[in-house]
């Protein structure tokens, strides 16, 4: 397939998420202190710092990781992509698995690994330079497919459902919103904004819930009244995506232009290129 989702976008998104997690470290840890073991912020920051470091490596290409396959580059990214999106996401997943430590490690790890698998295996629409709109729509559709695959993985791994006061309370509505936006033909920036907003609503909705999974479930009723830290970091993940992609199409909900899509990535991201 061609990557409608561009590696450079993924890289920018991950950097933004790493920044957000670092900024919100204390907040996440405070939330976790209320109903968990007060390490979510620390763990996530450690994991995303490791991810950012991987992105900074000269050979950011994840070719040597568990995700061995090299994905053909999209036309738009022919010159810029460090590697295929699938391989990139799998590297992120493996890095989180090995560095987060808490339950968030295997869960976020699974999220990215499953996204990576979906990116590697999904049939995307081959798009030509001449059809920027189609390109944009394909990108949104692929974002939606990736997130759906990832969320399904998290759901299976954690054996949790929405309403259990977990990451899924943010991720599931986000994936649904993203799918709806894709079907509406919206550009990725706009679609991800909707997803992020859905995640935020889901996150806030965790406050009155009784935790049914993880350490917080030990508290039973006492978990009521606290926002779930996992749902919060998941919202940060979506928010980072929305902000990253919105930066490419700042003004409008209309389909992105060919020029915008073809813009080279910011200088900071070029450092990561081979």
């Amino acid at each position, binding site marked *: 397939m061609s990557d409608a989702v561009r590696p450079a976008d993924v890289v920018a998104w991950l950097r933004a998420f790493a920044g957000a997690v670092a900024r919100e470290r204390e907040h996440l840890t405070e939330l976790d202190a209320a109903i968990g073991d007060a390490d979510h912020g620390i763990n996530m920051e450690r994991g995303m710092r490791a991810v950012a470091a991987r992105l900074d490596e000269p050979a950011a290409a994840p070719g040597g990781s568990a995700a061995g396959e090299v994905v053909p580059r999209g036309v738009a990214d022919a010159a810029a992509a460090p590697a295929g999106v699938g391989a990139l996401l799998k590297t992120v997943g493996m890095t989180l698995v090995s560095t*987060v*430590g808490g339950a968030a*490690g*295997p869960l976020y790890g699974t999220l990215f*690994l499953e996204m990576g698998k979906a990116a590697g295996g999904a049939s995307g629409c081959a798009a030509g330079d001449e059809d920027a709109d189609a390109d944009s729509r394909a990108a949104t559709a692929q974002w939606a497919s990736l997130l759906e695959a990832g969320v399904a993985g998290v759901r299976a791994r*954690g054996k949790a459902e929405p309403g259990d006061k977990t990451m899924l309370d943010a991720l599931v509505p986000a994936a649904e919103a993203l799918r709806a936006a894709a079907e509406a033909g919206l550009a990725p920036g706009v679609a991800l904004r909707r997803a992020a907003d859905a995640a935020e609503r889901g996150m806030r909705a965790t406050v009155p819930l009784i935790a049914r999974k993880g350490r917080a479930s030990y508290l039973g009723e006492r978990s009521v009244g606290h926002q779930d830290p996992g749902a919060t970091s998941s919202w940060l993940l979506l928010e980072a995506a929305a902000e990253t992609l919105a930066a490419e199409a700042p003004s409008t909900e209309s389909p992105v232009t060919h020029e915008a899509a073809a813009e080279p990535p910011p200088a900071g991201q070029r450092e990561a290129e081979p």
Partner: protein
Amino acid sequence: MIGLVLVCHSAKLAEAAAELAALMSGEGLHIGIAGGLEPPETAFGTDAARVARAIDEVWSEDGVLVLMDLGSAVLSAELALDLLAEGRRSRVLLTEAPLVEGAVAAAVRAGLGDSLEEVAAEARGALAAKSAQLVPGGEGSAAPSAAQAVAHGAGGAVGGPLGLAPETVPPVEAPPLRLTVHNPAGLHARPAAALVRTAAAWDAVVTVARAGSGRGPVSARSLNAVATLGVRCGQEIEVRASGPQAAEALAAVRRLADTGFEEPGVGGPPPPSAATAPAPAACEAPPAAGTVLRGLPASPGVAVAAARRLVCRPTAPPTDAARDPATEWEALERALADVAGDIRSARDAVAGRAGAYDAAIFDAHLLFLADAALLDPAREAVFRGQRGAAGAWADAVAQAARAWESLADPYLRGRAADLRSVGEQVLGHLLEPGRRPSPPAGGADAEHIVVAEDLTPAQASSLDPATALGVACALGGPTSHGAILARALGIPSVVGVGRALLAVPDGVTLALDGEAGTVTVDPPPAALRAAAERRVRRVREHEEARGRARLPAVTGDGLTIPVLANVARPAEARAAAAAGADGVGLLRTEFLFLGADHLPDEDEQVAAYRAVAAAVGGLPLTVRTLDAGADKPLPYLPLEREDNPFLGVRGLRLGLAHPSLLAGQLRAVLRLAAGHPVRLMFPMVSTVDELVRARELLEAARDDLRGAGVAVPERLEVGIMVEVPAAALLAEAFLPHADFFSLGTNDLAQYTLAAERGNAAVAALADPLHPAVLRLIAATARAAGEAGRAVSVCGEMAGDPCAIPILLGLGVTELSVAAARIPEVKQAVRAVELPAARRLAAEALAAGSAVEVRRLAGA
């Protein structure tokens, strides 16, 4: 064999759990661990990639069982499956079994080569024993889950659930084996694992039941099942086996039981550290016949005899019926004096049979009796608190002992035991005047092995080696006072055997091996034979030595070495002569002074010395003048209290400081010398001037006696004890005034290495085989040799078979040892070839440490 993987948040926990499991499994089981995050991260956590790697590391086509702790460990283990190669996933099983118990149970079962499913079932059932122990309602309530668990795992040869009904037991082909479990905690996990491993090694179906309880039989293949039997210390198990190797399996189980199921202190391999003795909790059931109790070797030799418990009657603190304070206080003082007398005679007895160094243990006890820290509070309580003597004393002792016990230094803490022991003795005298200082070891007329919790020095000194053939102590280490004294008395001894020993009834035959450190209870005929043979061999060697004891000790190349005796009392002189001594190399005259309440006058001394002379017939006698000091005070001789008595006024210094005392002794020796071959020796000489002054006193005494018309010999050989490095280094300078040298190697080592031999913390430093000490001996011997003078060694090293070739190689011409050592020392001399001994001595002088010297000497 399947592999095991443990997944934990903590690397340490994973490692420790794996180590625990590996202890149980026997050889060959691969246990992989995935704990914590990869370095450089140090946080708790789990890492699915690491789990996958661990699985790959222990990979076996038989499968891999993964156990994990909680939370992310479960998620990471599941994720790890996704990361594995496709073909491996189906042979990896994640189990909800409890991490530690499950790992242990799984390791045992896996070690037997059982299938992945069987091992997993065993792991899942691993809480059964704990439930049986802890769940309210007792052992029975958890049985269903245990049964279920084992039923899950039972496969292949075993079959059947935990509560295997008797009729389903396969046909029994070997008579059942009944064993009593002596392990203090019963058949707990580790002994049970040993049982499972042992039973499974044979082609037989083995079951275990707790005799008389209706529990079991269960498969001996399942750790859970065996543990669930809840076998406690002292209970019996019944082991049955069927199949081609049923008999072998039962024999192996019996052997295992003989070793206490491999539990240190009960039997089995020696404890990892020989320095500390295991002290397992009490087990009241008597050990079964054939049980091998294992402790620490304390004194070599083999003994077979009936057990006889040395009973310590704890003296109940009295209820006060206080008379007037003066009477009470007088009673206490009398008791203190009585105990001091008892301790002195015990010390002298030990000094005679063993050596002055060992006897010095008692000196500390004597000091307690005069300690203001005890006497002041006791006096206060009697006179101001109107307490009775016994109560006042008991309180003072208890308080002081607590103070000792609160100290950080383990040696000092150990003194609390000495204090309590002395305190008991005094209390005994107060409450039962005339009572013996320590209970004699039973009737003391028949041969026996003394069984005791620990041996106080007083008890040890009361042992008669003729009837007390061995000593076995439940507590104590090889450096405890009781052990040192047993060794000194030549009584085979094992210490730190554990409390199971105390359950042995009197009269049961024990075979004690003081070299292996074992005590076999009611030994089977074969063990009895072996022990008897060893004993016979030792006795034969001893007899051979004794048979030749009266013959001169001549080296292989023809040099005769006089082997003399160290003697502290007239009775010992007789023993020395009987043992084949060529003379007395050291007559300690302290016996006359230290035990007396007044200064013995000249006539008393002459009488005592003549008694010794008569006891040894015509053998030459080396008389040493009084060797006292602040460390060995004389009640009638006021001595300044010294901070450091070993460096103070002692030895010849004391004699010169009290010239009338020394002069009296010199006159007595001169009178003795008129009718007997005598040499005179001065103790602890440091400078030539001291010797010159002492000789002037001697000449004055001779003139006195002559003037009074008393017969004195024309010539009396005069020598010095070389105990101070200065004297050894300047031996030549003493030659014009000294006819012979006698090396007191105990003190010489103590002064050379600046290590007090009575202080356990440094005593090991004062090794006379240290090359520095040997160089001082060499310097002394060289000076003496060039002048053709005799040089003797009268320290303990003279009786050490591995030191003898070195001493002779250095040029020592005489040895003086405890009477009991004479036959063997003579044998050792006969084995020496001087050229080889000189080479050995030269190498020893060039060595860098005592350890190196001992290695050279083959010790």
